[in-house]
């Protein structure tokens, strides 16, 4: 991923995004595999959203083949997906603080994130790439003995949450660095089809868990969180994106608690025998889409089955894909030192943001900045601020 900027003094006048130096061809690879193998490929699209992609993919195949997921399976899916949201948002909080030069906050929040990773390892066997999703349900049950451990972790987050919230929402330096920085208006967010916390922070009341409740979300009262819940106004800046993500952590804790209370008994997967399932999928004909509200926004997969072992089409779309274009209005008019936090504010899921080219309009000079240089500029700006 390369960003090309044209600057006038310290201000950005033009932005050009140039992604695509590393094409993995994951959809091409998927077309040479059967749907059950693709689940594990989908899981590895992203290390942080490793529940979102298999969730969306399994829903797409189920819709295409007409498979119903047992209710208990739906509840377990939601619990895993919400635990993932907690760890993703806390990871982001640490990352954003690091970009601003608050490294102690990075250590606090990433230490806090370890708890939920340990819980995920306890429930699924892995810290990431859980391998828990299966077409028609899930592969592992949550037993009665495991529930106290889940509740313990949720209590831990309730305790520590106040501390993290206090750092981000009451610290004057963070407010100065993030308020009115990287503003995305509601109109721009709509026009550019932004998704997830990026869209919600601009005041678009959009969340698939609310708009089109699927799985166990259909039984829960999930509401899209916009920043005006807390502050009474919507600015669409970096600060608002922080608010939305912090409030979503609390929402996730509540969702998991409701799931644990209402979880029905019964089967966890529609068809246990993989060979039978594969035969069923071989005979299936149809197309389906699967959507899931990932931590970063809507994740959508499209699958077309055509009476053969391999799917005819598999299309995966990650949320950052739609938020890519939103960077342009956010970055225009900003200072160079604000580039790192604005780019980080949509929680991008790109392999690596390698470098930035800056064209100075005063003298036509071209210069290249690496991530390290930019980070240094951002940290220096924070040090200069005296609230």
């Amino acid at each position: 991923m390369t960003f090309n900027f044209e600057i006038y003094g310290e201000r950005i006048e033009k932005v050009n995004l140039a992604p695509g130096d590393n094409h993995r061809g994951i959809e091409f690879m998927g077309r040479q595999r059967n749907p059950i193998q693709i689940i594990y490929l989908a899981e590895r699209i992203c290390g942080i959203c490793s529940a979102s992609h298999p969730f969306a993919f399994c829903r797409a195949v189920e819709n295409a083949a007409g498979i119903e997921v047992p209710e208990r399976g739906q509840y377990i899916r939601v619990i895993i997906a919400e635990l993932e949201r907690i760890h993703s948002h806390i990871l982001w909080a640490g990352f954003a603080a690091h970009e601003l030069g608050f490294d102690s906050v990075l250590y606090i929040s990433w230490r806090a994130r370890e708890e939920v990773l340990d819980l995920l390892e306890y429930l699924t066997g892995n810290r990431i790439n859980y391998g828990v999703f299966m077409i028609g349900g899930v592969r592992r049950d949550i037993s009665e003995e495991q529930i106290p451990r889940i509740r313990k972790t949720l209590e831990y987050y309730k305790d520590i949450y106040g501390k993290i919230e206090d750092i981000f929402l009451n610290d004057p330096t963070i407010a100065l660095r993030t308020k009115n920085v990287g503003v995305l208006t509601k109109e721009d967010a709509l026009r550019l089809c932004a998704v997830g916390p990026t869209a919600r922070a601009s005041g678009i009341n959009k969340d698939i868990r609310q708009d089109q409740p699927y799985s166990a979300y259909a039984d829960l009262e999930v509401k899209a969180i916009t920043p005006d819940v807390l502050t009474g106004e919507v600015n669409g800046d970096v600060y608002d994106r922080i608010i939305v993500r912090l409030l979503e952590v609390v929402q996730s804790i509540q969702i998991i608690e409701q799931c644990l209370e209402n979880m029905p008994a019964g089967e966890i997967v529609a068809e246990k025998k993989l060979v039978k399932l594969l035969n069923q999928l071989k005979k299936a004909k149809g197309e389906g889409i699967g959507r899931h509200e990932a931590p970063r926004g809507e994740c959508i997969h499209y699958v077309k089955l055509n009476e053969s072992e391999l799917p005819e089409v598999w299309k995966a779309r990650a949320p950052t894909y739609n938020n890519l274009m939103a960077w342009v209005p956010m970055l225009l008019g900003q200072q160079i030192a604000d580039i790192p936090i604005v780019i980080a504010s949509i929680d991008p899921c790109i392999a690596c943001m390698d470098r930035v080219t800056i064209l100075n309009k005063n003298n036509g000079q071209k210069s290249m900045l690496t991530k390290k240089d930019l980070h240094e500029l951002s940290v220096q700006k924070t040090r200069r601020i005296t609230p």
Partner: protein
Amino acid sequence: MEYMKPDEIIELFKEKFNGSVTNNKIEIKTAGLKKNSYSLIWLEIERKDFKEAVRLLCTIQFPHFAIISGSDIGEEIKLTYHFSLYYGERSKEISLNLTTNLPKNNLKIPTITDLIPGAQTAEREIKEMLGVIVEGLPDLANIFLPKDFPKGVYPLRKDETGAMKMVNKEEEEVKKAE
């Protein structure tokens, strides 16, 4: 805000584009213990009316555009545009999938970026992945494939212009080296 039912939306399209809507389907899915339902619409429309259909869609509510998925079905390429309508309120959202077929000897489709600017990334993707010519698209540089990717190879095609040849060639080279 007034909400149209899925069958009303299909009727609206049928009325406006008489005979051009070649296929339509409403799917109703349920979820959870309470079996709450949501609906999906699948519409197939001829290419000549495609742009107008998107324009009509924008008059219902500014749609959320998700992605274009393309499939190579022999003599034709089938493009499906995935939209969603009526977001913002609980259980009201309808997924609308608009499909159109392009013959391989005339792979042209008008751009929708003048109506929905956010579709640019997806249109550039189908251009380089499937070789579809998007008429009126402003920026034509490669977006996902590297800049030195061979011309005339479209990774998601299944015919002779697909990427299978590149994969086989690499395998042969590896075998030779061994």
